[in-house]
């Protein structure tokens, strides 16, 4: 009986680490894989991508501990005793490796302990699960109070809740992440620290179970808050949240900023100087909402929306979408018509999803062609990303680290697209897309992500069933995702952010706001313009970008307008418009070559293949993927350099017929300065600015044309021009 004390001691160690003191270990229960060993695999990073989670590793474990049964097989069953040795447990490779200094992250004492636990488990038969009654029900996170003090540290309690009602503290075994590190930062283990005021969530992963806790960090302020009795319900919910948190919103933006912002956000273009003058002069109390209405009904709005949809639908002639030029044109024409007629969004989605025929004549079949690999699973992932804002893609290679999207349900959704067939015709690059409805699928019904069960009747086009489910008013994501996208387009940040990352562990920062918009869309029969209109008319959208003392650290709750760099297309179109010298756009791949007519704007480019080095440098999306982040508006040093000193920008201004024209027209230097300011910054200069600019023109560079070009160059290089503010 010499081994008994050792065994008892080890048993206690094992259970102490997994089970809380409130619940002492049951006597006589032998350690098992699921309850005792597996949590350590994840905790110690054994299965991380750099170690045994790697494809190249001989001992391959599942990333993020997503598949315990598989990993058990790998360790215990498959290799024929390679890792575990039942005869001499202490000689098991698993035990030896750990004693020999593996993993390096643990110190000697920790490794010794881990080795003892493993040895004990093997000695007891290396069982998978000795406590089946402990069926895992859920992971639960808690804090005594979810309202936190700025600067204070807390420990989140994570409990595994079992079907029999028992609970175990697993805080030490969880991986924690904060949704917004500025508000809450995760320190080591389960410790968190409250930072800037805000409202955010922390999520945890334990043995591939996830849980989220919402936390609030208010600040004390003596600032005044706007009356929440405002008419617009958007302002009511945004302001109520800000008030709870002590973050007063910024003031309403000036008319000058409003007119520029509205043009940029709805058309991607600067307003012409005449439009600015007229808007500023108008005394009409409703002039803001009238401008919104005018622009929403303009052709430029249509082009601007087609650009956004072209990005999302990967509208591109070349690799990897490979739509080819003729089909790209047909596809873009359809988008244009859909936006122009304000096609209800449910019909918009349905037409994309359920169409058959030639890629030239039934433009929406190109939805199914914009893939390098036309695999039903990949098609369903793409539809899931675009319409459900969900990133199913990760699960194809490995478990998603941030949420539990069950691998199979996604595979199942691919079933709707298994009937798709493609055939070419005698016409160059023409292709017919059609469903082969007499296909016998092995899957007869599919469980959707929301739990709904959708039938796939024999002899019918199954895409119809998918579209019915997707565009239903009861679909939990379809409407939410598009209203959140529009919010993101207009405000630079989603209520769910990023806008294509909907998951339980990434909840909306203002749930009431998102539900309100969702309900508005549904009750207005999927009228997207209505959503634009209510957002644009809100005080929230019309706030200044200049922060106050209390809201300068907020970047997520819409207390002030978020600065964002103009997009690639906006920048080049502005300099072309002001100078009067346009770019020429063409592409010599693939055939037939594409040449855009003179005067064509970058914002009108419907084919992602037609590009310039300017557009690439300023982060135009590749259209290889449908993520919003594919459009990169991050300022880089290359861009600043180009904008300061490229011949592209400088020559346009130096040779500009438009600038020549106004320098001839306005002999009064003050008026000339006014006009240049209006054209580039959409406002009149201040008294000081006017004085400085005038002095420059009268003293530094007296050449009428060159001086004006210098002034235009300087204004184009200000942050005020480069940012949407």
């Amino acid at each position, binding site marked *: 009986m010499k081994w008994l004390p050792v065994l008892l001691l080890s048993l206690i160690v094992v259970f102490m680490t997994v089970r809380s003191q409130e619940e002492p270990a049951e006597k006589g229960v032998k350690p098992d894989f699921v309850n005792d060993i597996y949590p350590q695999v994840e905790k110690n990073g054994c299965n991380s991508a750099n170690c045994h989670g790697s494809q190249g590793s001989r001992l391959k474990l599942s990333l993020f501990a997503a598949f315990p049964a598989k990993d058990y097989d790998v360790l215990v069953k498959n290799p024929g005793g390679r890792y575990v040795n039942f005869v001499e447990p202490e000689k098991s490779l698993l035990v030896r490796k750990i004693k020999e200094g593996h993993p390096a992250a643990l110190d000697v004492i920790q490794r010794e302990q881990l080795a003892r636990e493993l040895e004990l488990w093997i000695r007891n038969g290396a069982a998978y699960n000795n406590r089946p009654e402990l069926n895992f029900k859920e992971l639960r996170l808690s804090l005594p109070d979810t309202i936190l003090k700025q600067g204070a540290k807390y420990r989140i309690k994570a409990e595994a809740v079992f079907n029999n009602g028992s609970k175990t503290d697993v805080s030490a075994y969880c991986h924690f*992440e904060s949704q917004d590190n500025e508000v809450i930062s995760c320190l080591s283990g389960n410790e968190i620290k409250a930072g800037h005021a805000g409202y955010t969530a922390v999520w945890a992963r334990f043995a591939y179970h996830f849980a989220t806790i919402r936390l609030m960090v208010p600040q004390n302020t003596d600032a005044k808050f706007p009356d929440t009795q405002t008419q617009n319900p958007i302002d009511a919910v945004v302001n109520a949240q800000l008030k709870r948190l002590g973050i007063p919103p910024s003031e309403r933006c000036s008319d000058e900023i409003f007119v520029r912002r509205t043009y940029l956000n709805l058309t991607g273009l600067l307003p012409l100087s005449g439009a600015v003058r007229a808007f500023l002069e108008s005394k009409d109390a409703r002039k803001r909402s009238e401008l919104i209405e005018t622009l929403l009904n303009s052709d430029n709005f249509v082009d601007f929306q087609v650009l956004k949809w072209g990005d999302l639908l990967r509208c591109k002639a070349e690799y990897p979408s490979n739509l080819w030029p003729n089909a790209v044109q047909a596809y873009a024409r359809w988008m244009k018509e859909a936006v122009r007629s304000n096609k209800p969004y449910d019909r918009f989605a349905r037409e994309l999803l359920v169409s058959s025929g030639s890629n030239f004549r039934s433009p929406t079949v190109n939805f199914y062609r914009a893939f390098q690999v036309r695999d039903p699973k990949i098609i369903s992932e793409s539809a899931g990303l675009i319409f459900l804002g969900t990133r199913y893609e990760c699960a194809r290679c490995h478990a998603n680290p941030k949420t539990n999207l069950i691998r199979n349900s996604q595979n199942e959704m691919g079933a709707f697209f298994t009937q798709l067939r493609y055939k070419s015709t005698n016409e160059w690059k023409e292709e017919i897309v059609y469903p082969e409805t007499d296909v016998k699928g092995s899957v007869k019904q599919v469980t959707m992500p929301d739990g709904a069960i959708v039938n796939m009747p024999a002899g019918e086009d199954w895409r119809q069933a998918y579209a019915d489910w997707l565009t239903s008013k009861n679909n939990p994501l379809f409407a939410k995702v598009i209203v959140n996208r529009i919010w993101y387009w207009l405000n630079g940040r989603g209520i769910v952010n990023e806008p294509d990352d909907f998951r339980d562990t990434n909840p909306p920062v203002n749930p009431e706001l998102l539900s309100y918009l969702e309900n508005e869309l549904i009750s207005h029969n999927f009228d997207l313009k209505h959503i634009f209109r209510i957002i644009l008319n809100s005080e929230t959208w019309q706030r200044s970008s200049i922060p106050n003392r209390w809201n300068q650290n907020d970047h997520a709750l819409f207390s002030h307008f978020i600065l964002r760099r103009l997009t690639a297309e906006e920048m080049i179109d502005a300099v072309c418009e002001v100078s009067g010298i346009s770019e020429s756009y063409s592409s010599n791949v693939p055939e037939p070559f594409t040449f855009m007519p003179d005067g064509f704007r970058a914002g009108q480019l419907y084919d992602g293949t037609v590009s310039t*080095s300017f557009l690439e440098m300023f982060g135009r999306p590749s259209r290889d993927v449908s993520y919003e982040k594919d459009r990169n508006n991050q300022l880089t040093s290359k861009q600043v350099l180009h904008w300061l000193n490229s011949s592209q920008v400088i020559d346009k201004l130096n040779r500009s017929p438009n600038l020549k024209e106004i320098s001839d027209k306005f002999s009064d230097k003050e008026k000339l300065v006014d006009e240049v300011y209006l054209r580039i910054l959409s406002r009149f200069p201040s008294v000081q600015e006017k004085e400085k600019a005038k002095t420059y023109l009268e003293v530094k560079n007296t050449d009428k044309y060159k001086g004006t070009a210098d002034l235009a160059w*300087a204004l184009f290089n200000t942050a005020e021009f480069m940012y949407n503010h």
Partner: protein
Amino acid sequence: MSNLNDKTGLTATTIGRRDFLRMGAFTIGGLALGNFLSLRAAQPNKLALAKSVIYIYLDGGPCHIDTFDPKPKAGKDYCGPYKTPINTNVDGIQIGEKLTRLAKIADKYSIIRSMTHNYFGHETASYAVQTGTHPGGQLVYPSMGAVVAYKKQQEYTGSLPPYISVTSSNSRFNEAGFLGPQYKSFATGGEPEKDNFIVEGIVNNNITDQQINNRRELLHSLDTFEQELAQDAEIKKMDSFRDKAYSLILGDAKKAFDIHAEDDKTRTRYGRTRFGQSCLLARRMVERGVPFVTVRSVGWDTHKQHFERMDEMLPDLDQGLSALIEDLSARGLLQDTIVICGGEFGRTPKILWEPPWNGGRGHFATAFSYLVAGGGFIGGKMVGATDFKGEEVIERPVYPWDLIASIYQLLGIDPTGTLPHPRDGFARVLPDFKNTTQPGNGILREIMKTV
């Protein structure tokens, strides 16, 4: 991680800013800031043999039979007018008759005659040879230059961009792939063979330094908005970029592109052509430590009247490339500069004499050739072979990922290492490369120096 990583200490030198952000955001109890800073300060990889790469990219695909893998015995239908390959200064190596200057320096480069992949379209083939990845996955992988720019961002501290294309960049696919646009190449644009050679953003002959300074002052006096938002992180960033930009515009970087600083003899030796002067520019870039330069030569897609075009293009290639290799060698730069030359594929060995081709060659990916030199590649060797008509690889197939893995290894970049996945997943530098130790496979050990 492979043991290569441990040996070279690569983990230390390749932690980029993105990695740092990822660590900050996603590692619990991971590296503390102190650790990160000490990693950053790590020495450049001493075991790497190469510092820079010049990729002479023959866009459109040249024919191996006309260049580095002549097949005189295959007859007129394969060789056309190029019937008599020439001896080089290395016994047993013959190359195409138009490459007379290259023939004199064959000891300085090696020829891979067994390049192969299975992509016959320009877009998929360009993707395969430039990224070393099979087309068709869910991710668009970055090209070699973008990977090098990413991996060398701590080590390379020069003011010129780390990845430069002379004069234009590749248009077939998004060359930075999922790494993001900041890793795209800086394309010089302009016409280096002409007197008025401008480089977008850096060299602009239409504006004087005085004017630049005047404008800078004016801008500074009018940036009202920046003063209001002086505390904003974006605005601070913009300010610092602007200072950096001015140091480029008014400082040394501009001189790198001043091709007129080269004497006449040198410029003439490279050839007064777009290609020749582009090669000369590439040398000026690697002299200043730029880790990756692509010289993109266009017009190799000769479906029609192939030989008429080759009569014009091959002498230019011969002159520019031989001058580059000799010049690098004379300056002691060849030992740490890799030069590779080739296209996305080769061209059909059998000539299409009939109309409308009238002596053309089609796309051919089954077998084609690459030239490699310097930076740890041994000269005077041949790798692999094709059959007597140049239609099949009969010995030691070399796939694009093998070549690229070899280049990475010479640069001290682990070819089995990882890249930051765009959605926080896990991506490999070369997912299709299998690190095998068997001879005649994988890494081109037979023509590489060992450390």
